[in-house]
């Protein structure tokens, strides 16, 4: 560290005041970690040439985002990350921040191009921990062909935030022809999930509660760049996609039916698979994994006819090898999500209202 760091490994309030310590922090932690030219310019904004972005996407043969600037559409997303604990089995707040931002762009049919990140750090937080988080972000971003191009740092007093909070924004270019929204869904459309639901939520619950060995339940935190871009290129009538984060699969599907208004969704209990350890723990605690967050999977709705093609494409990729159809949109039960149970009955799967606590009796 530079000559002004008197307090060793700890973030001081002065690191957030814009002066020498701030610049030292940016240089030694953020710039060093994120390593890119735009960031290194040190301007108040990252200035990017949209034409170049378009060319870059084309050059990587990722997707067709339009031939001309007039055709190009920008996707912009923002998110904040306040997960506790900061480090968990399968990831950390940094990996989560980049993943979530990428997935938010991808599910809108956009190729991610750039990410920003703002840090709010608690006084006393260890700089060595911050470096781990930054490194994790840089690695996730690099693997997915994006850079963190600008950022911000604030420091708040001890006890004022849980270690570190991260806010991000993501920019991407929308694939030509993609117009994904819940209004597109028609009765008969298939509901595909790209893997087993609920692992992230139950992992975090276990990290906090220590119910079983932390290595046995793992967050599914993972960006879906390759599978979703390939899918969008291959299958032209994807209706809508969303990553079921807070509130899980049940809440996201409820959002679809409410935003659409003309259809209901029927899930088939027998077709939904779960990770063995996640399910075992969930059963002990009385948790329904359909309400538990996923941070590495997407819900995809497409026409029934395209479902097989979509599954074939998704199964080519490790992240989405477990993709399957778990239900269909229907004309009945408009505005509701129903789950057909093993006995042949059904129950309503309503939107999540509360966080789930372990039950007793």
């Amino acid at each position, binding site marked *: 560290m530079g000559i002004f760091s008197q307090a060793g490994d700890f973030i001081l309030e002065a690191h957030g005041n814009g002066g020498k310590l701030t610049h030292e922090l940016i240089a030694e932690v953020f710039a060093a970690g994120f390593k890119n030219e735009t960031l290194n310019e040190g301007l108040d904004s990252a200035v990017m040439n949209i034409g170049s972005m378009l060319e870059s996407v084309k050059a990587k043969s990722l997707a067709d985002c339009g031939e001309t600037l007039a055709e190009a559409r920008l996707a912009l997303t923002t998110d904040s990350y306040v997960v506790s604990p900061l480090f968990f089995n399968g990831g950390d707040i940094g990996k989560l921040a980049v993943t979530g931002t990428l997935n938010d762009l991808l599910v809108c049919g956009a190729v991610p191009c750039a990410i920003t990140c703002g840090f709010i750090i608690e006084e006393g937080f260890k700089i060595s921990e911050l470096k781990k988080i930054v490194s994790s972000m840089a690695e996730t971003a690099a693997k997915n062909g994006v850079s963190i191009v600008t950022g911000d740092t604030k420091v708040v007093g001890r006890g004022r935030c849980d270690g570190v909070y991260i806010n991000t924004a993501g920019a991407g270019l929308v694939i030509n022809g993609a117009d994904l929204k819940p209004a597109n869904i028609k009765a008969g459309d298939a509901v595909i999930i790209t893997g087993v639901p609920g692992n992230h939520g139950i992992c975090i619950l276990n990290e906090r509660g220590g*119910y*079983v*060995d932390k*290595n*046995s*339940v793992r967050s599914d935190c993972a960006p879906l760049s390759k599978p979703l871009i390939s899918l969008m290129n291959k299958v032209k009538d994807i209706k809508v996609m969303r990553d079921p984060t807070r509130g899980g699969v049940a809440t996201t599907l409820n959002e679809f039916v409410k935003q659409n208004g003309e259809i209901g969704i029927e899930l088939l209990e027998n077709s939904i698979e779960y990770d*063995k*350890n*996640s*399910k*075992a*723990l969930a*059963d*002990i605690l*009385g948790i329904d994994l359909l309400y538990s967050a996923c941070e590495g999977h997407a819900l995809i709705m497409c026409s029934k006819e395209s479902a097989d093609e979509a599954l074939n494409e998704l199964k080519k990729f490790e992240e989405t090898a477990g993709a399957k159809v778990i239900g269909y949109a229907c004309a009945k039960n408009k505005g509701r999500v129903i789950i057909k149970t093993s006995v042949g009955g059904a129950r309503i799967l309503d939107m999540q209202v509360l966080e789930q606590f372990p*039950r*007793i*009796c």
Partner: protein
Amino acid sequence: MCLGIPVPVTKILEGGFAEVKIGDTEKKINIAMVPDARVGDYLVLHAGFAITIISAEEAEKTYQMLEEIENGKEIKSIFG
């Protein structure tokens, strides 16, 4: 009244505890209420305690009864 999931005993420990398998992982639970539990027994778990050992004989009777019901035999209570 909590949902009890059958969990198998993998190890008997000292002091009235045992290790059971939850998914692929072990957890230490209190077996003071089922002191006769042996490795391989399946227990019903509630709030960190085993409340009973699942009876394999009774389970078998239940399966048989369900098969008979499925095959159209007159429905009788398991209670008999």
